């Protein structure tokens, strides 16, 4: 199956908090995408980037963290021993320990919804269309289309190569 990407384009994000809201709603009050507010009041949603060479997958001693067929980095809760090694190595501080499931929890690109043929809720509901989900070429096309139409000229542009790099590596260029 073709790998899917969940890409958050910080140049088009307006910090409206919709992604966190809908994620919170479908995960019973534990959002897997969270808004962080910088000192200068920039509202930045941080989610799992499902990195190409994900350090959490490499470090997990029980192989509880794995990549599924759509490309999402997921957790097999029954194999998680709560050692928090993944949390230590994640550059975004994404995984968190859930007392409810007694295991590490993180964004799994809405695995339950994908099984029902639905897409990740944050991407569907983002009013600014800053979160894109799909195969790499589709995500690149949509991000470029969105930017071409709506990004004000004061914001710097990324070259195609930089954009491709930022989407496929999971890292963010700000």
């Amino acid at each position, binding site marked *: 199956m073709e790998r899917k990407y969940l890409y958050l384009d910080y140049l088009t994000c307006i910090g*409206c908090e919709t992604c966190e809201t809908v994620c919170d*709603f479908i995960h019973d009050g534990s959002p897997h995408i969270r808004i962080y507010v910088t000192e200068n*009041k920039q509202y930045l949603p941080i989610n799992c980037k499902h990195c190409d060479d994900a350090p959490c997958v490499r470090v997990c001693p029980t192989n509880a963290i794995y990549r599924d067929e759509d490309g999402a980095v997921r957790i097999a809760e029954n194999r998680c021993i709560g050692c928090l090694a993944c949390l230590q190595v994640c550059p975004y501080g994404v995984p968190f320990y859930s007392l409810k499931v007694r295991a590490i929890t993180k964004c799994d690109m809405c695995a339950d919804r994908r099984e029902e043929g*639905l897409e990740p*809720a944050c991407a569907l*509901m983002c009013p600014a269309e800053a979160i894109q989900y799909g195969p790499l070429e589709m995500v690149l096309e949509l991000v470029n289309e969105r930017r071409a139409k709506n990004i*004000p000229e*004061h914001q710097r542009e990324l070259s195609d190569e930089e954009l491709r790099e930022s989407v496929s590596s999971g890292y963010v260029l700000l």
Partner: protein
Amino acid sequence: MRGIKFSFLCKEKPPQTGKRVAIVGAGPAGLTAAGYLVCKGHDVDIYDKMPEPGGLMLFVIPEFRIPVERVRLGAKELEEEFEVTYYPKTKVMEGEREDEGDEFYERAVRLSELRENYDAVLIATGIWNVRRIGIPGDDLEGILSPLELLFWIKGAELGYVPKEKVPDLKGKRVGIIGAGLTAVDAAFECNRLGAEVEIFYRRTIREAPAGAYEINILRNRGVKWFELVTPKRVIGENGRVKAIELLRTRLGEPDETGRRRPIPIEGSEFQVELDYLVFAIGMVSTPPVNGSYIATDKRGRIVVDSRHMTSVEGIFAAGDVVNGPTKVGRAIKDGLYAAVSIDRWLRGES
């Protein structure tokens, strides 16, 4: 581009419950609630006084923040795939009141009529009135409300407002009082239309609700930023704005908002010449009532219980009309949880 998927919880229309819900207001809270309710099998009708659904997302927030097409496609999907019926240009009101955007409505319906004709009603009418500042000269020609200004600009681009209605701002000096997101959006649009823009704020950039990030973007675009100033009076000439007189302020102890209170410094008056002045100091809830039909608080916001139900059984409320001005995400959250309550109430669970 794809539309906002307000019905993100389901793939297709489920079997119908036979229950009918009226939603008043087609902004983010109303449309999200509709998306949830149609996924639960309820029949939804949406009333809005504007010519098409979308609310502030469509008619006020600048295009570079939220694309018009994304909102339009989202609303259209609800209509075509989930059989939501829109009643545009329809003002729902119990009592009488004039609001911004009233020029668009052609039909009026009473809120109590909706309560009689539907199994449940959700009010999500938002904040369509502007707070007035109340200083001498604030009624002069050339004083604009941010809502009018943003609405005229966006409305003209959407083809609903005649182009002549939008002031020619090219080369004009525009002053903006306030430093919230509305003030910032007004400044962006005036700057884009060629005006020389100056923002006046009574605290410092550290306390500005819009934040230093947005304000610094504006400053990089040539917008001037004056902090620690408060308006004293507007000076006119032949009934039109000529200048604003400002007082310098200093910051005192924190007030109820946790921010340091601005204290005017007597004798520090100075004037700035202007062609237009925008008071972007907050927007006010516009419930579809003017009177005692449902309870509202001192600031005009609808009072709801933990189920989002108003003082009238079966009428719920959500979004900015309950909370005052907030972000789109907060309105969406409120719409979702209100819809959960409505669904439970319709099923007799609470």
